[in-house]
């Protein structure tokens, strides 16, 4: 973990309430896809944990949804402004067990962390296929970005207004070696039941600190108590209690 002052270089809406923010500065603490950053915002006491969507040598990209005071405040920020950010938080996804044909399943704002993961898997010579789930056509984002990487992408919408009608679990390919997923808990539970290989789940929880100090985000697993912010947010299928 590192405390960095990052400068906003981009903050653009992708849909009505989902924004992409690019932050430049020292992001050397980001070491794995699926990690998150924790952002201090003016006038708010707790930081806002947001998963990392992309990271290169000197910048990090996050995609966030305006759901409350903090994220709404973020939508009004402009390039040039700086943010105090704790970077490199959480364990992140482990690509070692992925096999040759990993499956990436993202739902809503659970989609972003899969982007850096897809990049890493591709760099390792693997061939990830991607299923992205949204409620409706207007909420779809990142489809083209995954296609640009060279991934095979299927989009599902609950109302059928775009792509396959239904949930990500309605569009599972027949053949995959492993899976990685991030999304709302009902989706994670459905993925848990619908998949026939091992895989990794990224969880969300209200956090106090984001770095393991307060025990605010603990959960029970088969292998004991885990802090979503420290031993998570990524847990393996075999250790999850659903």
């Amino acid at each position, binding site marked *: 973990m590192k405390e960095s002052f990052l400068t906003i270089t981009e903050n653009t809406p992708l849909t009505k309430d989902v924004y992409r923010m690019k932050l430049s500065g020292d992001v050397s603490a980001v070491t794995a896809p699926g990690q998150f950053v924790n952002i201090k915002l003016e006038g708010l*006491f707790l930081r806002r944990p947001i998963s990392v969507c992309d990271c290169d040598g000197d910048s990090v990209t996050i995609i966030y949804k305006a759901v409350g005071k903090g994220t709404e405040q973020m939508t009004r920020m402009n390039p040039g402004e700086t943010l105090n950010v704790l970077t490199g938080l959480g364990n992140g996804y482990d690509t070692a067990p992925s096999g040759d044909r990993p499956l990436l399943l993202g739902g809503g704002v659970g989609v972003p962390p899969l982007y850096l993961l897809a990049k890493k898997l591709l760099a390792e010579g693997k061939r990830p296929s991607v299923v992205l789930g949204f409620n409706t056509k207007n909420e779809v984002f990142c489809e083209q970005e995954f296609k640009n990487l060279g991934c095979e992408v299927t989009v599902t919408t609950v109302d059928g207004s775009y792509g396959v009608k239904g949930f990500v679990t309605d569009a599972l390919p027949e053949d995959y070696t492993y899976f990685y997923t991030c999304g709302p808990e009902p989706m994670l539970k459905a993925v848990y039941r619908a998949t026939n290989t091992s895989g990794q789940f990224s969880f969300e929880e209200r956090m106090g600190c984001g770095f393991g100090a307060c*025990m605010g985000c603990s959960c029970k697993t088969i292998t004991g108590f885990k802090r979503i912010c420290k031993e998570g947010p990524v847990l393996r299928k075999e250790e999850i209690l659903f």
Partner: protein
Amino acid sequence: MRNAECGMRNCIEQRTVVSLCGIQLDNPVIPASGTFGYGYEFAELYDINCLGTFSFKGTTREPRFGNPTPRIAECASGMINAVGLQNPGVNAVIAEELPKLKQCFHKPVMANVSGFSVEEYAATCAKLDKEPQVGWLEVNVSCPNVHGGGMSFGTDPKAAAEVVKAVKAVTTKPVLIKLTPNVTDIVAIAKACEEAGADGISLINTLLGMRIDLKTKRPVIANKMGGFSGPAVFPVALRMVYQVYEAVKIPIVGMGGVACAEDVIEMMLAGATAVEIGAANLTDPFVCRDIVEQLPAVMDKYHIDNLNDIIGGAH
């Protein structure tokens, strides 16, 4: 570089040295229990030996998972938590946490203890009494987030005094009793603890609070209520430290919303011998190191030669 400076410069700053129940602290800065784990998360960030000491995660006789999540809510200038004393239990703390801590912290640590019965408090303290790393026992009779224990001891002078007596009977280490602000008369409880033999008083624990989510129209926290802390509670904490200082002779460890060196000095002026910093660690993991570093300059600014000169100075 900053770590080294902290070790070289501030830790030998004689004018910040205070004595808490006979044990010397290089400075009065103490991360509060529940915001600093067992120390090593922070030891990865900076050399925690620059601190006076720290109070480790509230420990009970048996391991506890604590409350269901969500356990955290935000509020103006603060937060609410209902962790519910998650800890691995005293045996695991002694077998695993303390040896790990020894690698990165070389000062006496404050052991924070909670319980659900007088016997449990005594049993846990008796075990920690044998640990040379432990300097003080900070006995928490004030956790608002557990049922049938914690705060129920701290809201009744007789019950609080019973815990003090039972713990004092099993230890030779100084016993600080950590009090809850959720009472009508904090002074009566503090006096009862002093009479029962407490060596010092820590106050305040969190204030009972809650938030309701407008979208779900339900409490944000699974436990419904939780402990309110952060800068918003500082004036309440300061007032209670001030009141208790007038009523007892034993030292006070002041806490509640402390977030900077100025707050530390204000707490000491109210009557605190040492000062704990809680919620601020969660939003700024470096805050305690920074307070230690800034303390001498802030003392200069307010013409304070030695911190011992200002304890209770506002009375």
